[in-house]
């Protein structure tokens, strides 16, 4: 190899390395370097080639291909086979490599070669280092390689993503002629097509899964003016902490506390950085700073031997968790703390809330996260006074301490009120068992919720944790007392938004105090009458908690009790993140401009979250400050938190998106689900700061703007009037989602919606992750009586669901059975001409006349149809993330009007009262898009 630079394929450069006395080959496009001589693909068939290591040459493949790990391993077998077949290959394979580039000090030379190849070919997918396993030699890949080694190698190139990047193609549809198909809601967002070589790892997990983080645009415009031309908002929708259901991959954990971060912008190392300087330094993907690779980065600390850099999880996965070293701790990891504030006033006792709640806590004591036996629990009951319970460890006794001074709350005892769950288990169980009976005769009316909150806060302020409030009435005493401000006369008027604002500053200031002390508040509200959910929900909103509302809860109805017990139990069992702060970083010229969700914004862009529940969604708007020149940009979310098992960790979610200066590509890359999620957050915010009407108008106008922009720039019609209403195929459902939002309880125009329900709907709209939010604004509608025989039976992917129908009552048949659900409620609609056999099969009742509407539990009967219907209902309750357990209502076609109207309000494509039907909405949009001058 006298002067290798002359024989290099295009795009490669050779550099003499002084220390190793040999040439180093650098691919100029990606900055990747290797010792082996890179070759053009045509050379690969040449048996005289000095090396078998496939270089990332420019094989002209147009399609990106991903191979499963097993198949890649098959290629290792293939390489071995080649060594046997062609003597030149064999010689090269055995030739020892004198130096190692990425893992200095590695003993086994062959291992090094493999590492190089793996790094270039397949990455690790998080698995252990795959060796060429004998069984793979018989895999199909092996045979292929034998037949034609050139093809096999060419396939490997295909794998390396060397083909020219394909572009998103824009398909235009006419909204007037193509009605929305609900099945399209389940389509994945438009592909993220990164420039080749952007990622160090070809692993499919190198870019964030949309369930963790998604962007409204999967191709970021290079400038703000370009973005403004599309009128599509640029924002991130994130759920960094989502539940893992069966079959989901767990988040890989980096345990060796080696955390490589950019010195300047503090970005965590991720699959989009570049290694330079022979792998000794890395270039930050956000600010281009060159950083040193930490010394222990290539060291396997468990086995105390050189490790393989390419197998590190943070270079292969976009979602990773690091175990944090001491520098990330202000104090030792805190134990999880749960303080229950239980309303024991007359109404709470009478509704059976106290009994259900205590029983649920008792049943779920084992599910409360307590792996390291540190979890602490306290119970405080309140009506007009506060009742503390002292539970000394080692006894089964507990004593009640009453504090009736609610103006200046104090703790009656310094110790034994907040007790260790494991140690005080016996007394806790005894207390929970008789708490309901203790207050059985309590006729006190009134609620000192504010003082109870202060007491709970005092108990746990040194540590922080979670306060769980269970309250059945409007707070009426002490700090934070509220007045009944519900006034039916102002509902539906412009003054209504006042009812959605906090009535008392106490809850806001107290929330900030809580946030500082790492205390998070969850509200479980049960009142039958006005409870001012809007004000109370403030507290969870700013302390990263959640509000749960059970209007007119009555435990004597088993459905109510089951729903509450299920959801409460899930909340208790949920592994929470404690003492968390979240920050989103982005490439140069991108700035996080506004934040929506349940947290408190500390110091411009640091989101403080004392306790992060699972499946909470946050929306962050992004501003393009200056023209972006990079071919792709990176967004990185980092959540520093303490697990409820006493470990400080950092969860990092990295997402890379290509940039574009092409308008059609921007439109083609828009993610309608993410846009709808953002619009929901913005609409709620606007309805509180302005008026509900403004929120609806803003939604409508945004939709019009997008349509106008599309029409002006993407269609031939230009600015003139057009008979069509064009939008790109991937945004086709945005109008129906916006319509669903306008018709949602949280925003809808109506004089009938109690402010509590509205406030609760708004709390849901701003915190639900997209997966749950989309059905909430666009319910799912199935026809059950004529579903095909396999529906409701267990198939390959669990229970097979019937195909969803468009949300219009035209699809309701008089003899049919239908299911409408929005994730919070399930309606079983029974047509008036339902045959007795159907009623018999499903409800075990002789005919339609005897059937009663309302909340029910569906009986599980010994006939296939009942079992299938039950399976569909069950699947509906389980298929989404989150703790919600929807109520099931039976709705008779000629039943009580309120229930019927409620069910029908889910069919958002219909006209209801003053709200337009989908057709009307579309023609309004068209008139607006055509009418105004653009």
């Amino acid at each position, binding site marked *: 190899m006298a002067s290798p630079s002359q024989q290099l394929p295009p795009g490669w450069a050779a550099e003499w390395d002084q220390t190793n006395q040999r040439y180093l080959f650098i691919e100029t496009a990606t900055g990747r370097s290797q010792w082996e001589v890179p070759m053009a693909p045509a050379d690969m068939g040449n048996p005289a080639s000095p090396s078998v290591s496939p270089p990332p040459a420019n094989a002209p493949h147009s399609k990106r291909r991903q191979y499963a790990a097993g198949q890649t391993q098959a290629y290792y077998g293939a390489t071995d086979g080649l060594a046997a077949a062609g003597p030149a290959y064999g010689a090269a394979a055995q030739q020892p490599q004198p130096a190692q580039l990425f893992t200095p000090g590695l003993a086994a030379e062959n291992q090094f070669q493999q590492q190089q190849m793996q790094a270039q070919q397949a990455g690790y997918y998080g698995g252990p280092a795959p060796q060429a396993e004998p069984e793979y030699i018989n895999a199909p890949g092996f045979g292929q390689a034998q037949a034609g080694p050139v093809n096999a190698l060419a396939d490997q190139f295909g794998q390396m993503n060397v083909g020219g990047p394909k572009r998103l193609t824009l398909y235009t549809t006419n909204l007037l002629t193509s009605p929305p198909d609900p099945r399209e809601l389940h389509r994945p967002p438009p592909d993220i097509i990164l420039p080749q070589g952007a990622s160090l790892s070809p692993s499919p997990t190198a870019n964030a899964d949309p369930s963790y983080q998604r962007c409204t645009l999967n191709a970021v415009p290079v400038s703000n003016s370009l973005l403004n031309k599309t009128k599509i908002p640029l924002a991130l929708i994130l759920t960094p902490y989502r539940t893992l259901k069966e079959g989901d991959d767990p988040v890989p954990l980096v345990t060796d506390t080696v955390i490589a971060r950019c010195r300047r912008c503090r970005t965590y190392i991720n699959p989009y950085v570049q290694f330079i300087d022979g792998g000794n330094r890395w270039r930050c993907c956000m600010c281009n700073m060159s950083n040193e690779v930490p010394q222990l980065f290539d060291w396997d*600390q468990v086995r105390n031997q050189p490790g393989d850099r390419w197998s590190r999880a943070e270079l292969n996965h976009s979602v990773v968790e690091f175990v944090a070293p*001491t520098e990330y*701790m202000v104090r*030792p990891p805190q134990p999880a703390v749960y303080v229950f504030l239980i309303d024991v006033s007359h109404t709470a006792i009478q509704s059976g809330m106290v009994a259900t709640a205590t029983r649920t806590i008792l049943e779920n004591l084992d599910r409360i996260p307590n792996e390291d036996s540190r979890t602490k629990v306290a119970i405080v009951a309140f009506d007009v006074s506060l009742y503390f319970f002292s539970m000394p460890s080692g006894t089964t006794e507990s004593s009640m301490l009453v504090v009736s001074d609610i103006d200046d709350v104090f703790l009656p005892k310094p110790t034994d009120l907040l007790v260790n769950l494991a140690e005080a288990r016996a007394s806790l169980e005894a207390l929970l068992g008789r708490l309901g009976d203790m207050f059985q005769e309590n006729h006190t009316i009134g609620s000192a919720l504010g003082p109870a909150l202060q007491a709970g806060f005092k108990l746990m302020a040194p540590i922080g944790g979670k306060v769980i409030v269970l309250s059945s009435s409007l707070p009426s005493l002490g700090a934070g007392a509220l007045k009944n401000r519900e006034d039916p006369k102002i509902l539906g008027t412009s003054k209504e938004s006042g009812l959605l604002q906090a009535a008392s500053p106490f809850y806001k200031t107290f929330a900030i105090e809580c946030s500082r002390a790492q205390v998070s508040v969850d509200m479980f509200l049960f009142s039958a009458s006005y409870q001012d959910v809007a004000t109370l929900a403030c507290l969870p909103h700013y302390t990263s908690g959640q509000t749960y509302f059970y209007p007119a809860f009555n435990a004597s109805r088993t459905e109510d009790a089951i729903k509450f017990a299920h959801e409460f139990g899930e909340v208790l069992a949920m592994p929470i993140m404690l003492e968390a702060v979240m920050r989103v970083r982005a490439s140069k010229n991108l700035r996080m401009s506004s934040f929506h969700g349940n947290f408190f914004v500390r110091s411009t862009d640091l989101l403080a979250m004392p306790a992060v529940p699972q499946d909470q969604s946050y929306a962050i708007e992004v501003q393009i400050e200056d023209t972006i020149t990079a071919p792709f940009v990176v967004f990185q979310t980092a959540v520093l938190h303490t697990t409820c098992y006493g470990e400080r960790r950092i969860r990092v979610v990295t997402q890379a998106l290509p940039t574009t200066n092409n308008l059609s590509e921007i439109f083609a890359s828009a993610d309608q689900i993410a846009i709808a999620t953002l619009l929901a957050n913005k609409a709620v915010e606007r309805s509180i700061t302005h008026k509900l009407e403004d929120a609806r108008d803003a939604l409508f106008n945004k939709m019009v703007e997008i349509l106008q922009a599309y029409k002006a720039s993407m269609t031939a019609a230009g600015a003139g009037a057009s008979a069509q209403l064009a939008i790109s195929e991937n945004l086709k459902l945005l109008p129906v989602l916006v319509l669903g939002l306008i018709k949602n309880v949280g925003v809808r125009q109506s004089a009938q919606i109690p402010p509590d329900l509205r406030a609760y709907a708004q709390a849901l709209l701003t915190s639900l992750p997209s997966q749950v939010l989309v059905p909430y604004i666009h319910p799912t509608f199935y026809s059950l009586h004529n579903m095909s025989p396999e529906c409701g039976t267990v198939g390959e992917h669990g229970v097979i669901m019937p195909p969803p129908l468009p949300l219009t009552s035209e699809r309701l048949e008089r003899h049919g059975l239908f299911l409408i659900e929005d994730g919070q409620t399930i309606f079983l609609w029974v047509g008036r001409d339902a045959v007795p056999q159907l009623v018999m099969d499903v409800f075990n009742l002789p005919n339609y006349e005897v059937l009663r509407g309302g909340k029910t539990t569906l009986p599980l009967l010994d006939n296939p149809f009942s079992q299938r219907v039950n399976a569909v209902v069950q699947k509906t309750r389980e298929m989404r993330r989150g703790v919600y357990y929807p109520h099931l209502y039976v709705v008779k076609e000629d039943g009580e009007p309120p229930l019927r109207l409620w069910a029908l309000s889910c069919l958002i494509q219909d006209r209801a009262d003053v709200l337009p039907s989908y057709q009307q909405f579309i023609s309004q949009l068209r008139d607006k898009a055509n009418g105004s001058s653009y």
Partner: protein
Amino acid sequence: MVRSTLIVRASDALPLAASVDDEQTEQTLQEHKQQAKLVFRRITPNAEPRCSIESGPYTLHYLIADGVVYLVIADKSYPRKLAFSYLDELSKEFLTSYGAKVETVRKPYAFVSFDTFMGKTARLYQDTRTANAAGSSHVDKLNDELQDVTRIMTKNMEELLWRGDSLDSAFACFRRDALSL
């Protein structure tokens, strides 16, 4: 009164466990915790196994046992005997619970669950006066069981940190000897 307790690995000062303190304690002790960290860094294999270091209104008592350093920040007036008796008790319990794993852990605060025991023990060693006043005389009992802790090196934080004194026992002995010459 026992204010705060820290347990670290002697070889690399990796925190193993610590008491979870409230915000107020955290603030008042901030400086002293920093000092404790400096002390941990100065511990060498031949450091004095027991030492009390005075620092402002507090005294830092530490004890090294089986490669683990136990340090308590206590009021200056808190009896040294009690402090070391407390540390002794912690070290015994810690050794039986986690002794074998100490050398292998890499993440900080790996044994933070020890704080439950620390909290309980610290309560037994509460302020001498309140204990006496309550008549429960925990401390009396403890006093009886106390071992002889008179031969404990005493240092001043200032000397240690700013004048570059070391914690080596040999050195200390030498100095003592030198003084008595």
